[in-house]
């Protein structure tokens, strides 16, 4: 179970990298900021139909690629480096909950269409501060109704299928809500990170259908995949910051020398490199564990997330600082990473939550 990339993974990384450079450079994120669109539908179509990215972790029997967590991590790293706006993470998390369920009807109904990019699905997962939802079974039919509010939800306004965790009389359950259901109000929020589409979901007696299976286990699995995916995106983006800032320190001259000659600059970049290397090693371990050593996946993914989320957020601030004034302008790309870093650090469980969870797993 080597940490280094296989030839196949290397090829995947290169094809996604090329795709990002050709089809979704940072200029296209700026177009989205102007247009207000959450993502580029053509780009998403190619990501799914051509590259099969939404199906990487979906088994082949349900129309996916069945490639696993390492492939997902490799692809997400490249997408993160380019700050590609897409509903991929939302779809991957929704798919994970479906795959982990024992609900074959739901799997057959949704997984092939998620893998093919025809359906955008999301998982309404947020911290306790983000609100909660209660399920009521009035006994009138097979379904239940949901009431409550939750935010921020990934691609909450873009999804046609929402998987919503809710409190029931028997503990937590996961419920499938149609995007057009009665009593569902979805409000797109102002996202700090321009590359994320985030919404508040309000449910008021909204009809829903229960997803069969162990909800607690499915949500835990989704949290682990979320940690891996966000750690991967952060690793890619952090490397982009490191490369961008090193390049600037090589060519920008002040006091008669390239600024990288000064230790105040050089040492900060060296620390960034060190944090990236350590985080990347932890990321590769988590990516492999998901495929080959599932019993270790949760802790490994938490470790990668804890290290990379913090390191990337710091690196993005340093990217602004080391570029000086130009790095703080709207025209420069540094702020796009800075905001992505802020957001990646806290989405679906911030550092404190992650460390608490890790402490529980480690028997502290």
């Amino acid at each position, binding site marked *: 179970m080597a940490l*280094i990339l296989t030839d196949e993974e290397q090829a995947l990384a290169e094809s996604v990298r090329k795709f990002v450079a050709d089809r979704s450079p940072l200029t296209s994120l700026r177009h989205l900021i102007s247009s207000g669109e959450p993502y580029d539908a053509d780009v998403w179509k190619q990501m799914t139909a051509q590259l099969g990215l939404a199906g990487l972790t979906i088994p082949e029997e349900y129309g996916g690629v069945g490639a696993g967590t390492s492939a997902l991590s490799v692809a997400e790293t490249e997408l993160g480096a380019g700050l590609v706006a897409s509903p991929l993470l939302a779809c991957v998390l929704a798919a994970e909950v479906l795959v982990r369920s024992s609900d074959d009807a739901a799997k057959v109904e949704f997984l092939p269409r998620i893998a093919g990019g025809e359906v955008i699905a999301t998982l309404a997962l947020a911290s306790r501060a983000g609100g909660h939802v209660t399920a009521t079974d009035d006994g009138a039919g097979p379904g239940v109704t949901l009431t409550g509010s939750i935010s921020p939800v990934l691609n909450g306004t873009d999804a046609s299928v929402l998987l919503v965790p809710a409190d029931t009389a028997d503990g937590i359950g996961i419920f499938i809500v149609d995007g057009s259901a009665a009593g569902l109000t979805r409000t797109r929020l102002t996202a700090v990170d321009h590359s994320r589409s985030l919404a508040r979901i309000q449910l008021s007696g909204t009809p829903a259908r229960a997803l069969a299976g162990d909800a607690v286990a499915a949500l835990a699995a989704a949290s682990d995949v979320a940690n891996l995916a966000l750690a991967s995106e952060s690793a890619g983006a952090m490397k982009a910051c490191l490369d961008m800032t*090193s390049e600037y320190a090589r060519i920008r001259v002040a006091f008669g020398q390239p600024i*990288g000659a000064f*230790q105040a600059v050089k040492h900060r970049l060296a620390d960034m490199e060190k944090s990236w290397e350590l985080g990347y090693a932890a990321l590769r371990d988590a990516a492999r564990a998901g495929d080959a050593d599932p019993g270790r996946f949760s802790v490994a993914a938490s470790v990668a997330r804890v*290290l990379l989320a913090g390191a990337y957020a710091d690196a993005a601030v340093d990217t602004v600082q080391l570029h000086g004034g130009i790095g703080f302008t709207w025209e420069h790309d540094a702020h796009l990473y800075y905001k992505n870093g802020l957001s990646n650090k806290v989405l679906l469980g911030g550092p404190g939550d992650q460390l608490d969870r890790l402490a529980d797993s480690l028997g502290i």
Partner: protein
Amino acid sequence: MNDDFRARARAWLAANAPRRDSGGDDGESGQATLADQKAFQAKLYDAGFAGITWPKEYGGQGLTGIEQIAWSQESRDYDLPNGAFFIGISMPGNTLVELGTEEQKKRYLPKMLRGEEIWCQLFSEPGAGSDVASLQTSAVRDGDSWVLNGQKVWTSGAQFSDFGAILARTDPTKPKHSGISMFIVNMHAPGVTVRPLKVATGHSPFNEVFFDNVRIPADALVGEENKGWDAAVVMLRHERIAIGMMGSSRTSPLGFESLRDLAAGLGRTSDQGVRRDLAELYARGRAMQLFATLLREETQAGRLPGARGSVAKLAGSELGRFAGSVAADVLGDQLAAFDSDEMYAVTTSIIAAPGSAIAGGTSEIQRNIIGERVLGLAKDPGVDRATPFNQLRVGTQRQN
């Protein structure tokens, strides 16, 4: 094949090596006597676990980095009583494998692996630490030999070493990097004096060594005359990799498991800050191990780590300091005074922690190396690089 080796290593370790228990992590070698250490190294050699990647003709096993990784992983929880050989094999030994003459390799390497001869490394001087190329120890040619004069410092293991790899100035009229040579010096030769140096922990993990007209033969030169800096760079690379990959064992006093158990014993694990600190310590320690594994895998795949060994060295030092601060948080006021061996071991390790950011190249120097050789940033201005050494100001003295 790797699995065979791993299984063999596991079985041998279980049968022959003591498991770790908690002891001070301050760089002192363990309790084993020198005779015990030599006997253990010989046993290790006979079992085929010494010099795993070295060529067979010099006593090695002729295996690959894969087996080396397997060995490191399997031996991590054992307290191998052969610490006296660590420096010699990983630094001068690896350097001789790369740069030594055929005679030097045949003469020295097998005896090193078999536990017959112990080596030390003699680079730093009172006036040349981070700027080690400013060293003032001189070697002057006299017929068929060289005559060595000067002082070295921070020399681990000098008190029991048979040989040392020493850097000395052989041409003071050249710029500082261009007039240095590397030699093999017999530590038992007349004129060599070794004195222990006491450090902040109260222990003496290393020495200062004086050379007073010490005569060494011409064939003791490693590499070419006045090309000693190149040889030093090779050895420093091996040093950083070795230090970076030492990692910390699961049971060292500042390791995650030890501090978790200590916190539980003191009733501190209900404190959210302590819990989070311990979880972060686990994460950072784990990343260090994984990075070392990644570097070995890349080496095995033909991508040499080069200056990224400095990343491991820097990260290891920072992890040590972080572990020290976590330990201090866990102990609270119990750090200030104690009367148990367990607390002595922990506080000694806390006091020793800053040392790792100095020994083997300071963290500041590692950052320079990472910046310049990994990230390709401009070099430090180096105002002294082109000046003949005998016109430079060095250390805290004026050199004329």
